């Protein structure tokens, strides 16, 4: 009965996410408000169905649904969609929804191929840490995936903008000369971003882009509808600022669990060390983000590389490399 419920909720979530992805992808292209009005409820409904699948799975097995790759991928997708909804609401990032939901749906469908049905827990997984360590790490992965999406959007916009601003003369570091600060009206003259070369910031829209948009260039007009590069950079930073502490906590809790189960908090297991590699990459991101000349394009590339490392750690190590984490979590 419960397994049937799991299957129904799972299939429903796959379908709803796919429909939400299509609708929000349409919004990415055409920016009609009705597309958000339909796409977001579809995403929320998909999330609700997925939570239903996860809860049913927990009831069916009697333990935290985090014991195999199907479970953890399912949780990963749920966290990704949840984080997306939170950040998109905060920063009007709905245009990104098509990509986030599409990738999430792909992962959820892929998760289904790893669903072997009920199997008992191996002794090392019979611990309260299963319900703490795995969701924490998976939530971190979800944050990194969202950061990957915003970084890719940043890079797409950055390179397209460069084409529209003539490219030459603009820096390769995401800094643009003298994007005029907007006067905020009244007696307050607030230069929001005076992006001189020495300024400690990334650029807002480029003048070339604004000009092209005013002249009716469709791509430029479309680009103007995407959050500014400066905002995308800040959003990416804030998402990684959610992911990195979660990953740190996850690694630490994993070490505590490893000490209980295997007798040592760190065994240089491929999973542990590849998680450490991810941690190092995002740590480098955070350090480089303190330097103005690295913020923007370069840190976005680091975020993309970081997510590639996450995928290697999450799926590559589980599937191809044997180790202490070989139960495909």
């Amino acid at each position: 009965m419960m397994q049937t419920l799991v299957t129904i909720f799972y299939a429903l979530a796959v379908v709803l996410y796919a429909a939400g992805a299509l609708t929000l992808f349409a919004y990415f292209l055409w920016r009609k408000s009705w597309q958000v009005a339909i796409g977001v409820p579809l995403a929320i409904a998909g999330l609700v169905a997925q939570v239903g699948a996860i809860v049913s799975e927990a009831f069916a097995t009697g333990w935290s649904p985090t014991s195999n790759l199907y479970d953890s991928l399912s949780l990963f997708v749920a966290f990704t969609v949840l984080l997306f909804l939170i950040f998109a609401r905060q920063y009007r990032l709905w245009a990104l929804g098509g990509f986030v939901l599409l990738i999430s749906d792909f992962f959820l469908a892929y998760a289904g191929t790893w669903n072997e049905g009920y199997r008992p827990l191996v002794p090392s997984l019979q611990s309260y840490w299963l319900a703490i360590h795995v969701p924490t790490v998976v939530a971190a992965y979800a944050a990194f995936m969202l950061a990957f999406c915003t970084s890719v959007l940043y890079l797409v916009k950055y390179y397209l903008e460069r084409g529209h601003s003539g490219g030459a003369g603009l820096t390769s570091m995401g800094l643009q000369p003298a994007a005029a600060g907007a006067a905020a009206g009244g007696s307050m003259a607030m230069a929001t971003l005076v992006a001189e070369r020495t300024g400690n910031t990334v650029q807002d829209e480029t003048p070339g882009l604004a000009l092209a948009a005013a002249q009716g260039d469709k791509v430029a007009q479309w680009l103007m509808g995407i959050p500014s590069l400066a905002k995308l950079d800040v959003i990416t930073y804030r998402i990684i600022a959610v992911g990195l502490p979660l990953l740190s906590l996850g690694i630490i809790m994993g070490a505590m669990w490893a000490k209980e189960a295997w007798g040592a908090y760190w065994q240089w297991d491929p999973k542990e060390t590849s998680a450490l590699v991810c941690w190092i990459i995002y740590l480098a991101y955070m350090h480089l983000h303190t330097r103005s000349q690295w913020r923007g394009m370069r840190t976005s590339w680091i975020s993309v590389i970081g997510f590639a490392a996450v995928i290697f750690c999450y799926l590559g190590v589980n599937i191809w490399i044997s180790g202490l984490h070989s139960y495909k979590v």
Partner: protein
Amino acid sequence: MATAAGAERLSPLQSLYAEFIDTFGNVLFAVSLLVVWGVMTLIGVVVDQGKAPAAYFNEYPAELARAILRLGLDHIYHSYEYVGLIGLIIVSLAVCTFKRVIPARLPPLRPVLVDKIPLHAFIEARGTEEQVRARLERFFAKAGWHVRRKLFNGVEWTFADRHNWARRGVLVAHLGFVIIAAGTTLYWWKGYQGEIAILSGQTARIPQNGDLLTVHSFNYTIKPTQTRGGVIYQPVDYVSDLTATSPAGKTERDLLRVNHPLQFDGIAYYQASYGYGVTFRMTQAGKPVAGVPATPLLEGDSFPLGPTGRAIQYTQFVGTIDPKSPSGIGADPRPFNPGVVVTVFDGAQPIGSEIVPLGHAVDLGGGYRLEPASYRLYSGIQYRHDPGIPLVGLGALVLVAGVCISFYLLPARLFVRLEGEGERWTVGLAAQTPKGYTMYEEQFAGLVAALQRSEEATAT
């Protein structure tokens, strides 16, 4: 030129020190070390660690295997290069903390050119200078800012700080990393670990501290489960009934399970693995052959095949021999139709292997016959003495606290200067944060808008 002249005045030692501080205090240098650390760690993920040389030659082309062994990539995490790199990172971290982070994060109060700071605004205010200043200070204090005044060359400035204490977040995070490193070093210095296999009903001694461990019995539970891929035989529990006795005579009896270690005499004991010890009988022309151990052998153990120079290895225990399976080994690991895989070695070279049913003899040639006679379960117990654990735990806590403080609390400083005379003043307001301006753009806009509304309300 001034710098060059200054450098000339430095002694060689001072110059070296200055160069050291410049290099190790550089964020890009620190990030470069992180990149190298990441790459070296990744190599250890991809290349199996701690295997016998033959395993690398089996897995990789000979030249690559030789390179792996020659470069020490088979034990990269314990190589001098890796440990040295972590040492360099800690030095860089310490120099960055004390020479860069602290001075940059705790800037002194100083006047600024308001309109040269990207986040700035000008607001009209009415009233005497003191009234306006008092009003501003009330406004900021009410919004949770810590307000201070200071005179610079006769010009009075108001400064407001928010989350000023959080400027130490990076310092706290770095400190956590150093504490973890100290805890790990303490283990390397004073700690030890090992694994010991004890047959059911036998006693063994821990060599490092002399503790005696007696395994009264060992049991496991395997639960056959039907999955979509077929029946799997999953172990769901294994447990040792164990008594530990210290050299001083203290004893403790416990059921040792995975995830439930026994803490005894400063050592943690863990249920790590289990297996089958097998007793062998060997004869030649019907007579027992000397040199065959009388005690059960564990998987991987071997003994000489008489005076032939060859050796017999007990390679694997087979719970269920299944003639229908291509390997002859059934999926069910429980000893329903048990046997053992034995391998004959000529020197280091395996020359043949066979599954031998328990209680049956196999002909090895030359009149030699080998019979796996009986089996007994053994419990694999891991032990570890790690005096660094409390420090590592504390360091992890401090590290996470520092990371959270750094990421979630954004310290900001406002610089406020009044210009004007009589009853008409222009409030120049600028903001700086340690994370750049973009990060604070929205909050600053909100603050300015609120301040402006407040001033407009006062004026009306």
